[in-house]
């Protein structure tokens, strides 16, 4: 059970209703970290806007975005975010073998250069806390400056979301723990 119960929709302030509507418009409904962030509507609004900008107006296509997201979710063992993004990654064209390898902490066999760059950037930043010049140069060659800004920001954003979800031990909808 979540440490923080969702707010009763009947008790939302006008500001919370406005932000909840914006989040629902972008994400179908208010769930996961946003059920808790909504207690502070300014935080919920800007956290939602950052995530939506990464998802919808990034220079990276959805397949690469979701690959970055699941790599970060695995690095931080974020159960809730994994449960929503692993299916999204497969739907966006990340191979099920790759998703399973990342889930099990194995190095995935990536067949495309762009996917290798995304995986290496996310893994290096989360594990070594820095980005080697060689990997940075590969990212710039593959995605350009704007695409690299979007990629690194995606990694950072899901680190933030992960820390938040793990603080409140937000469960997956099924109540399982897909990441061992």
């Amino acid at each position, binding site marked *: 059970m979540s*440490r*923080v119960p969702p707010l009763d929709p009947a008790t939302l302030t006008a500001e919370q209703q406005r932000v909840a509507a914006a989040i629902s418009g972008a994400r179908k409904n208010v769930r996961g970290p946003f059920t*808790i*962030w909504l*207690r*502070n509507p*300014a*935080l919920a*609004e*800007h*956290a939602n*806007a*950052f995530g939506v*900008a*990464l998802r919808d*107006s*990034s220079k990276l296509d959805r397949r690469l975005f979701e690959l970055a997201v699941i790599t970060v979710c695995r*690095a*931080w*063992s974020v159960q809730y975010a994994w449960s929503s993004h692993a299916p999204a990654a497969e739907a966006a064209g990340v191979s099920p073998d790759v998703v399973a390898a990342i889930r099990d902490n194995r190095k995935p066999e990536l067949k495309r250069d762009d996917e290798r760059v995304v995986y290496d*950037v996310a893994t290096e*930043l989360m594990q070594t*806390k*820095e*980005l080697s010049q060689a990997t*940075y140069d590969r990212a710039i060659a593959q995605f350009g*400056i*704007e695409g*690299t*800004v*979007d990629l*690194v*920001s995606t*990694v*950072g*954003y899901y*680190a*933030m*979301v*992960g*820390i*938040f979800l*793990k*603080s*409140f*031990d937000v469960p997956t909808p099924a109540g399982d723990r897909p990441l061992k």
Partner: protein
Amino acid sequence: MARLDPLPVEQLSPQQKLIHDKIKGNRPKLGGPFGVLLRNPALATAASGLVDALRGEGKLDKRIYELIVLTVARHWSAQYAWAVHEPIARGLGFSEEMVEAIKARRRPASAKPEEALVYDAVTELLAGKVLSTAIYDRLIKQFGLDVTIELISTAGLYSMISTILNGFDVPAANGEKPFA
């Protein structure tokens, strides 16, 4: 030398210029994470909104805020963030022992009990753990849910900012390397 110089102001698009001027405020120039994020104006806007929600409008005590920022910046060895925030922390009365202990990744002996609690919570989260029930319960008792949401969000936000700083190896303004 920086990997990525901030765009010269005269090269900004009208949208970038608008956001640049809003975020820059009274700063002499806009650098650090915002110099990077301005490449994608929607990201810069949302990140600035998160900082405003937590630092400007937040209920979180300013000393606790800076304690979190320094602890997170030290974890990621984010040179720029440490160089900006160490003087702010000292200006709020942080002792030499507090600053040096955090820099050495030690729990500061001179921290007040509520500061030690926050230090323990943030280091536990950054170690990749689900926040323990014991610490979570103490946070709620000490700060209440609304401020706990702010302090966790601050730890997450500065992890995101540190990731962006490290991805682009953003140097401190005066070229110093506090963690060299």
